[in-house]
């Protein structure tokens, strides 16, 4: 079973017609506030994300013809759900409560004076603003043999990660992620995560 990992800096956005970008990179790209002046793990990913979206802003046929590919960002139902939920729980709630371990439902979503509604509007509008760069794909759940997936998960293999790896491997679409656990055969992984890269 071949493992195919590409270092982020070696990845040319024009080299692929489609790419999948994980929820954490989506959130960083949509919400970075430029506060930090020091290097951050997420900044190289934002640069690549920007480069991919930038290629999708080209509308001149002559310019498009010069490109090797105008790469579309693959969006699935589960990825939209993960992006919205991870943003609200891990970013928006933390900022509102000023602590890491709040009760999401009680202290944030159902709290009358929280900024939940505004943050939900913002993240969904931000995702929608990039629709021109996306292609939407179905989840092909039955084709991925769901019972087989259940048998493959364990303490090191997250169900959603496994599902993405199977789906995108089947479609030949590379995945950009910083998740160190995202080590699967038969799918191309683009990453800057040294722990992942050294497993090659």
């Amino acid at each position, binding site marked *: 079973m071949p493992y195919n990992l590409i270092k982020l800096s070696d990845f040319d956005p024009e080299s692929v017609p489609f790419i999948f970008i994980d929820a954490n990179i989506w959130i960083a790209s949509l*919400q*970075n*506030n*430029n506060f930090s002046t020091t290097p*951050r793990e997420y900044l190289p990913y934002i640069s690549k994300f920007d480069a991919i979206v*930038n290629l999708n802003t080209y509308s001149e046929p002559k310019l498009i013809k010069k490109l090797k590919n105008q790469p579309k960002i693959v969006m699935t139902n589960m990825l939209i759900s993960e992006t919205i939920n991870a943003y609200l729980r891990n970013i928006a709630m933390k900022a509102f409560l000023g602590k890491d371990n709040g009760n999401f439902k009680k202290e944030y979503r159902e709290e009358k004076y929280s900024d939940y509604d*505004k943050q939900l509007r*913002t993240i969904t509008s931000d995702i929608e603003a990039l629709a021109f760069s996306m292609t939407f794909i179905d989840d092909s759940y039955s084709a991925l043999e769901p019972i087989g997936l259940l048998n493959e998960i364990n303490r090191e293999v997250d169900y959603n990660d496994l599902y993405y790896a199977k789906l995108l491997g089947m479609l030949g679409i590379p995945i950009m992620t910083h998740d160190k656990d995202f080590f699967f055969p038969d799918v191309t992984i683009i990453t800057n995560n040294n722990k992942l890269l050294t497993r090659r």
Partner: protein
Amino acid sequence: MGRIINISKVIGTSNAVIQKFGNQIFDEAFPYLLQGESITLDFQGITNLTSGFCNASIGKLYSTFPEISEDLIEIVNFETNSIWSEKILDAIELARNPERAQVLDEALLALFEE
């Protein structure tokens, strides 16, 4: 109305959606504000807008010029009471509140811990 900066003309697209484009607006506006000249950021022709763009452009201008930005920056041609308005005001608010910006930055960083 000060020096007009038409956002779509500067970034070459109607999609104000990436930080690179926000940085281009910052670079365009920076010299005028440095000289104490007023600017007008014109959203005419923009069809899509993200928080990241607002932070990299308007937010960064407000944090770089905290004393004068309120008086010298005018923003026009977007619907007030809209989600765009919220994103613009959030970027300004964040620039004025570095403690909140730091919390958000640390939360983002935590998503990328190895």
